[in-house]
């Protein structure tokens, strides 16, 4: 219990920093999924799983997939990679545990974006009612407002990361116990997940994003079927 609380506190802090970097502080790709998962994979002795999950999440974060909180997905997946070995969970690229480590954070990343949009709407209404420019000292009011938003972002990012990390670990443990799928299924996931993600990134370069996404995914899956 104590160890889980320490993990939760660490995840809260890391998630807060990740959210801060994504939203405003630098936006220097430090919180991108490939970076987070690569580091977590190396630190937990699962570099291949870290690379596989990181590549998939990183490539999905473009084009039509852009409107989601990908650093949150990355931090949720990275936490699972880090926490897993301590409870006997080792992720294999393309395996059921790794697939859940993709699916749950992606769903969370989409959900988190809805929360953020709601906050933007509320913030807009708050500022319309009580604009910092109307204050006697607008400079101070602006500084106070920005500080408050940063602290809220850190807290929100921390809570979201803890929740996503916990859900992902639970899901991965549950599916790992089931085992599931054979080598053929694993190979299919191993190739088609990053291929579909690459199609999303390639689709971002062209204007026909959905068509590119669907077409390339189908092509890769078919090609895989022929190869295997």
């Amino acid at each position: 219990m104590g160890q889980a609380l320490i993990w939760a506190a660490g995840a809260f802090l890391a998630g807060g920093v990740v959210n801060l970097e994504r939203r405003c502080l630098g936006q220097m790709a430090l919180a991108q999924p490939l970076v987070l998962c690569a580091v977590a994979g190396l630190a937990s002795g699962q570099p291949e799983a870290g690379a596989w999950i990181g590549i998939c999440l990183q490539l999905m974060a473009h084009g039509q997939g852009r409107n989601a909180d990908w650093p949150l997905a990355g931090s949720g997946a990275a936490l699972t990679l880090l926490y897993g070995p301590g409870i006997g969970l080792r992720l294999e690229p393309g395996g059921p545990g790794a697939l859940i480590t993709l699916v749950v954070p992606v769903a969370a990343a989409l959900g988190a974006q809805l929360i953020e949009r709601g906050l933007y709407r509320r913030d807009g209404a708050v500022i319309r009612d009580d604009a910092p420019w109307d204050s006697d000292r607008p400079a101070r009011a602006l500084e106070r407002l920005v500080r408050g938003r940063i602290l809220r972002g850190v807290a929100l990012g921390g809570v979201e990361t803890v929740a996503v990390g916990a859900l992902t670990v639970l899901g991965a443990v549950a599916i790992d116990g089931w085992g599931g799928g054979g080598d053929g299924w694993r190979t299919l996931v191993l190739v088609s997940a990053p291929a579909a993600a690459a199609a999303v990134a390639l689709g971002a370069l062209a204007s026909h994003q959905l068509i590119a996404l669907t077409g390339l995914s189908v092509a890769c899956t078919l090609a895989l079927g022929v190869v295997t």
Partner: protein
Amino acid sequence: MSAERIGRLDLLRVGLRLLLLQSSWSEGILQSVGLAYCLVPGLRRIHENRDDLNAAIRRHRTPFNTHPFLAGVVAGAVLRMEADGAPPQQIASFTRDSMGPLGAVGDPFFRGALAPAASLIAALVALLGGALAGAVTLLVVFNLPHLIVRIAAVTIGFRDGPVALARAGGWVGPRKTRGLKLIAALAGGALLGTLVLGPGAAHPVLTGVVAIAVGLGCALTLALERTAWSYVVPLALATLMLGEMAI
């Protein structure tokens, strides 16, 4: 006039605050709070009188939204105009008129080309050389161009004033965006080819040939501006045929 009052340290403070531009994004007023917050250190140096300072800050309450990496140009140019004593209407119209053009060149370059290019190149490197190499590649490819632009933006905006807008447009113009997209398509195609046949395949030469062929196919299709289907179908057929040959 009071342009001499603003030193490098002040511009640095404005630049550092620009890192927080998006922190207070809100519906309706968009980045206005962020922009006004960034300008405060510079405006404090220009307007020593409190009423003038408050008036200068209140000029930026109208909605503002542009690409965050290029917002430094607007911030620098606004400070120059404030320092030169430009009429308030001129400053307001510059801020309003500059956000559209900067967003129009910034979004396609940074979001539509640089970010996917960095991810695709990094993913290819990660697949071939390991996760850490991929992560380092992502950081270098993404940060090198964007940090140069962000660092230069405030300084050049302040030095050149409103004229800096055209210069900033040149940094990330359509030709550079297109070139970057072609590189990204090449890397993405190579990634797909490598993925399908496997990086450690029994036929490394064939894998390399497939990767290069698919990469060139993607880049060529993008260069020729064909619709997606025109490259999806040949790509699928080529991959299937080459895949069959590999067995």
